């Protein structure tokens, strides 16, 4: 099957160019400043989603580039996505209880 492929004597090695690493670094730094600034202004119910979105983008950048997932096998990608999906199940179904406790049945 496809995932049996491996080079004979050396592992498959994509060497990431330096400019990619530094660009990602600057993006992460700016993201940090951005999230700090956003927390000081009143966006009402959007404060929380904005913070989550910025943090998620930062995490995705680290995962794709620093952790090389962009250049890794599909299996690696599946493993990463699956973990977050499972976490999502925990969050969604637990919240389903708490958010509906106040509902009254007719």
């Amino acid at each position, binding site marked *: *099957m496809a995932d*049996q492929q491996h080079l004979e004597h050396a592992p498959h090695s994509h060497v990431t160019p330096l400019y990619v690493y530094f660009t990602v670094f600057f993006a992460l730094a700016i993201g940090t400043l951005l999230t700090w600034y956003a927390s000081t202004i009143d966006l009402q119910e959007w404060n929380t989603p904005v913070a989550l979105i910025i943090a998620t983008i930062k995490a995705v950048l680290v995962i794709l580039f620093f952790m090389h997932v962009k250049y890794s096998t599909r299996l690696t990608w599946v493993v990463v996505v699956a973990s977050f999906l499972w976490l999502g*199940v*925990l969050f969604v179904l*637990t919240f*389903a*209880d708490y958010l509906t406790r106040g509902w009254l049945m007719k």
Partner: protein
Amino acid sequence: MTTATLHDVRLVGASTNRNYINDEYGALSWLLTKDHKRIAILYLISVSIMFVLGGFFAMMMRIELLTPDGDLLTSDTYNKFFTMHGVVMIFFFLIPAIPAVLGNFILPIQLGAKDLAFPKINLLSWYLYMAAAVVGLVVIITGGVDTGWTFYTPFSTQYSNTHVFGTTLAGFIAGFSSILTGLNFIVTIHRMRAPGLTWYRLPLFVWAMYATSVVMLLATPVLAITLTMLMIERAVGVGFFDPALGGDPVLYQHMFWFYSHPAVYIMILPAMGVASDVVAAFTRKKIFGYRFVAFSSLAIAFLGFLVWAHHLFVAGISVYSAMIFSFLSFFVAVPSAIKVFNWTATLYRASVSWQTPMLYILGFIGLFTIGGVTGLFLASIGLDIHVTDTYFVVAHFHYVMVGGTVMAYMAGLHYWWPKITGRMYPEWWARLAALLVFVGFNLTFFPQFILGYVGMPRRYHAYAPEFQVLNVLSTAGASVLAVGYILPIIYLVWSIWFGRKAGPNPWGAVGLEWTTSSPPPKENFHETPVVTWDAYDYPAMMKAMGETQNV
């Protein structure tokens, strides 16, 4: 370079008697081994000891329950005994047994590999298990724990004056043992299959172990963090589930069962894998609906994560979420049913060999079905309100865990015993033990369905006098069951020195493990096999041997 073929059982190491057992001698060569087969034997010894310990607590409980009054044990002691019975049996027997004993030994061989992907981590896994066992034993000796194996808060965090911290620490460590085993299996299955061994040629035992490992990997960490939060609360005095701070004890239950429900699938999926391999071997047929059975393992692994709050129906969760979880719980029964249908279809018009592994698996199929169906009763909210926390629940989970997992474990142990030890067990004694287990089991637990239905609560050391007859029947059954479990311990150990020597393939089964010697050489195969045949390709094998096929 010759390749191992399906029929070429002459390939095995006839030229040498060296195998993994006599390869090296000395205690250190076992305690510091990296050989998955030796590690499996280490686990076999450890889980067997823990099984006997858990059984001791069970016997004490059943003896107490012979009479309605709490006259043998105080209520505090009884609480400790049912707690420790649960903790020992679940964390130290049921979760590791089939994966760490049979999976460790057989999986790499079925894949045509020389070992698991991470042999040192495999050994670490066993040492973590032993460390957890030592902590657990210290807890037991110094007074035990009485919270129930579920450690519900706030009793466990604020009020119990028993060794909650120690027990949860033991569970935490055991969890890491489990995680590392699962991790090892997944990487091995993905990356170390022999040439030609595509996914659809794998034995269904491998598919089942894969699904089990996914559950181990994704569920166990949530138990780890839940127990960590519990330990912190216990140590600091206040914490995450503390109502005085605004904490919610039901949140503990959500987090605990997020692991503990998938945990039951960790227990049953390997059993189902054994069932598939044994049914195929003792009917000499391909498993009907191979792909359905394979994918149903994955479906169970996934769906098993979506149903946990059916353990919280009466805990105070919202009715709406209860309805969602109830619906999902019905749904998860479907892939299990698919397996039962497929095994049955395989058995249809088959020529069955009635050896011990098959006897255990036939018992497994029937008892698992009863256990599974009674789970549906519990998934139904209206019914659950009446039978939750009664002996109905106790009977349900013992049907699936004992009638299911333990019987399949016995089946697998007997099926692969000649491969592991190079010896046959004595067939008639084994059949007698299987019969005693089947009769004893049903006598023990069927009355408990009735007891629960008429209202006897679980976890009580005393009960209303009208329940006594059924309790006496149950205890009588437990005694028979105990004999049924003691017999194999005796004759299996006996067979190691005095059993009839087994050849590479005493059952005439199809599978890579049957192409190498019994016991296997240290590196499993003298040459890397190249696989060109389907899973369970009995028709081809028998055609090559000139036999007529089963229909």
